């Protein structure tokens, strides 16, 4: 199946980022295609390469790992509003517009949304 994912929360603030990560890994392990993860609102913060989490899971690194297996796109406008510039992005993640989300919506068999609060 082709699966699209929308993430609406930043790292650590809410479990949604972790759930999105673990779901994506499990779906890939079951042979599904993850069309992409669109980072929206605070979701763009998981793309911040400067996250340091001594003794804890590093969510930016987790998503950067995933970024070689699926397209992870941070919404450009949301990034702007949060001061997240291109050079802050983890290397395997990209900045993009709603077009990336639209493509996922058009091609997916399933679409999940994680985040909350």
């Amino acid at each position, binding site marked *: 199946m082709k699966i*699209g994912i*929308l993430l*609406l929360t930043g790292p650590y603030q809410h479990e949604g980022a972790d759930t999105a990560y673990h779901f994506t890994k499990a779906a890939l392990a079951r042979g599904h295609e993850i069309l992409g993860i669109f980072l*929206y609102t605070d979701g763009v913060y998981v793309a911040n390469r400067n996250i340091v989490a001594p003794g804890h899971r590093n969510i930016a690194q987790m998503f950067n790992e995933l970024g070689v297996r699926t397209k992870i796109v941070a919404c450009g406008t949301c990034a702007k509003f949060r001061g997240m510039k291109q050079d802050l992005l983890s290397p395997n993640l990209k900045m993009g517009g*709603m*077009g990336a989300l639209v493509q996922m919506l*058009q091609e*997916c068999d399933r679409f999940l*949304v994680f985040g909350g609060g």
Partner: protein
Amino acid sequence: MEAGAGGAQDAAGKENCVLIMFRRPPYGSVMAVEGFRMAEALLAFQVPLKVVFAEDGVLNLLKGQGNGPLGMGDLGKAFAGLHSSGLPELLVVRDDLDARKLSPADLVDAPVTLVSACHLRKLMEESRVVIPF
């Protein structure tokens, strides 16, 4: 009270539609504004879209928002404007309006269609994608 005509159907005959569902009131979180922005973008890309307001989300459509010093704009007016961007109607869950002692007369001037909770279920069944804000 039927919702407006949707877009193309996929091989299974299912309407290839996105349903954006507004569940929160505006301004306390960024969700209503960002959901609006997504709806606007999907309309611009001509993605078949339905928009429904449920629970506290019905409050996004109250007339006369944006007063006072907070400077957050008037989301009600913005939602009303989606009609000229190609959204045929704003769907509102009747029970949630009633529970808040509101009527369509309290809402912004836009094509509003009241739906039952039963119809909300039907809307979800008909939409391959549901995105809550």
